[in-house]
């Protein structure tokens, strides 16, 4: 189960994830990211403060857009990850391919 909500602050789109992203719910994350790209946002922040779990299905969604982010000059930063969620990104070294920061302030400055 995942709840996804969007808000904008200045020229940032903040996508808030609440709950668990697994093989069953990752399609919602996929749709949210695709929509953000289609709407031409160049600064996308993913609020993970209430993300309690992520499996490979969720990691795969982020990975599948890395090329689009690069070719369309989109900056995406994840922030507010719990230690256990951050660890899942680190196991395969995905923390080196995606931008991850501590909090909203840091995420904005990384964009």
């Amino acid at each position: 189960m995942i709840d996804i909500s969007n808000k904008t602050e200045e020229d940032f789109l903040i996508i808030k994830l609440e709950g668990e992203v697994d093989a069953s719910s990752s399609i919602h994350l996929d749709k949210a990211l695709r929509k953000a790209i289609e709407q031409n946002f160049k600064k996308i922040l993913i609020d993970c403060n209430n993300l309690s779990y992520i499996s490979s299905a969720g990691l795969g969604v982020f990975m599948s857009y890395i090329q689009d982010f690069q070719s369309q000059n989109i900056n995406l930063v994840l922030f507010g990850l719990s230690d256990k969620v951050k660890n899942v990104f680190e196991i395969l070294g995905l923390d080196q391919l995606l931008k991850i920061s501590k909090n909203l302030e840091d995420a904005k400055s990384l964009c």
Partner: protein
Amino acid sequence: MKYNFKAPCSKKKLRAIRNFIGKNLKKHNLDDIEINMIVLAVDEVCANLIIHSHDCDPNESLELNMNIDAKHEGVTFEIIDRGEGFNILNYKEPSLDDIVRNKKKGGLGLMLVKRIMDHIEFKSSPKKNVCKLYKKFENH
């Protein structure tokens, strides 16, 4: 200490599978990160079976046996299904570059399982397939 769980082959049941594993591991004094990694590895194997071997058919089921060593040194899982056998050990890993270049959403799950678990076995007979995973607990 043995625990057993049976679930229909539906992606919506993955959460119940995770809750079952997490709840039982919590009784054994492991930290959150370690519990989450073990839960994740089993979730990945189950998701893979449900989606690829059983086509998400809720009339089919899989069985999960969980056994924590008497000395609390580690945990063994047996994931049993009766579908088309999928041998995780024969799975050829894509590289992360391939995944990014081909915009693939899959391929990371079994990589995670291999990184997390200490031992993986697969046995297939005409009646059933058994995927066995072992993880040694840290600090034991």
